[in-house]
């Protein structure tokens, strides 16, 4: 400690000062985001160091894999790739057809979004919240509010960035909600986190709503935060109790939130893109729009 305060200042005074400062921080928490960002940029090397043991374990598990295991894995991946590429061929055809139909209707054509693969860093976070830390930050163009998905569905959104890392709030956090729709009948709902990793709650669902166990929920894109059409969850239970004014509906997130490893960061909207990524996609989008106009 620097002797800013002369020795002999009473502990009571120091405690009062600490309490006042803490209360100021507690109240001003949301306004202090820039300060937090710069300090956590300074601290992020610490997170990288803390991540090392886990990374070393992973690396050693990989390098000690037996030939047999690798062969098996390779075979499985080849099989999956074959299945996927067949689906992709069909998808490509459908996409073209969809674009043509959309062109005929005069609606804007869907564009491919920019994506970046990010790795979850194994560092501890606030135990009261559902967070994961990613190894990409402001330097890679990550922004607050950015949607994050994995191979199965939506995972959450970025809530905090530093220079080299970012923090993602998971779907299941109590403070998180995402606008969704049912694929079967386009009913729009809001899925809110419950604090349990494998459960979401659908709030204010009228009892007359056509909703069944097993229905697939995809993001509806209405909140302008998550792009439309990413799978979110599957309905687990529908409880229409006469004593309650709304049906009690729970859903299970499709992304396995307790063991996520690799995630995709998505840059959804052209007007929200960081500048360096903006140019090529915008060029593409104007081309597509021209094509759509030509089709009209």
């Amino acid at each position, binding site marked *: 400690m620097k002797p800013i305060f002369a020795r002999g200042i009473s502990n009571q005074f120091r405690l009062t000062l600490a309490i006042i400062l803490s209360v100021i921080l*507690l109240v*001003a928490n949301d306004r202090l985001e820039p300060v937090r960002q710069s300090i956590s940029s300074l601290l992020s090397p610490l997170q990288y160091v803390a991540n090392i*043991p886990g990374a070393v374990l992973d690396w050693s598990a990989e390098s000690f894999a037996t030939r047999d295991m690798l062969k098996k894995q390779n075979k499985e991946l080849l099989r999956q790739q074959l299945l996927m590429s067949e689906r992709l061929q069909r998808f490509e055809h459908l996409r073209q057809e969809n674009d043509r139909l959309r062109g005929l209707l005069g609606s804007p054509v869907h564009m491919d979004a920019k994506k970046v693969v990010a790795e979850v860093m194994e560092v501890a976070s606030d135990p009261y919240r559902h967070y994961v830390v990613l190894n990409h930050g402001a330097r890679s163009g990550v922004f607050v509010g950015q949607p994050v998905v994995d191979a199965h569905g939506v995972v959450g959104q970025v809530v905090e960035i530093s220079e080299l890392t970012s923090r993602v709030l998971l779907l299941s956090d109590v403070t998180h909600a995402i606008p969704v729709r049912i694929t079967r009948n386009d009913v729009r709902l809001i899925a809110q986190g419950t604090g349990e990793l494998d459960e979401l709650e659908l709030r204010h669902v009228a009892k007359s709503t056509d909703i069944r166990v097993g229905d697939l929920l995809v993001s509806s894109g209405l909140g302008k935060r998550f792009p439309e059409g990413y799978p979110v969850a599957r309905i687990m239970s529908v409880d229409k109790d006469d004593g309650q004014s709304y049906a009690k509906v729970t859903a299970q997130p499709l992304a396995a939130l307790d063991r996520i490893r690799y995630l995709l960061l998505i840059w959804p909207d052209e007007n929200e893109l960081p500048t360096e990524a903006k140019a090529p996609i915008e060029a593409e989008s104007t081309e597509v729009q021209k094509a759509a106009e030509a089709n009209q």
Partner: protein
Amino acid sequence: MSMHIPHGRWVVWLSFLVAMLFQIMPLPSLVEGWRPDWLLLVMIYWAMALPHRYNILSAWVLGVLLDILLGAHLGIRALAMSLVIYVVVLHFQRLRNFPMWQQALMIASLVCLYHLVIFWIQFVVDVGSFDVSLFLPAISSLIIWPWVFWMLRRVRRIYKVR
């Protein structure tokens, strides 16, 4: 007068840095709830050993840093840590003279206080549900305290930290 010239300040801050590292180090999910409060334990040690140099305001700074590292609401751990260190600084002479087991028990109850304060502020400003597992870190801190104490005392003597 030589007592008044600080010496080996970097050792103390290095110990804080290492404690922070342990605080965010990944643990298997089975023992995650048992993570001892490394930073608090190290801070308690220095507040006990050099109460005129490392006290409530250093605890406050560390608390803010920890809040930022964990992505928590700012100020929560800052407040909890300053409160605990206030208690330590008030009673540092008594704490120093306790036998080890009694000292460890005192530290464990301080860790309980720390977690209660965190829970309480969290509940007021944000979200939070009470769970008895809140106090698991107190047990692990109780077990780990003698080792932290002996190690830091050795460090203090080797580097003549004043």
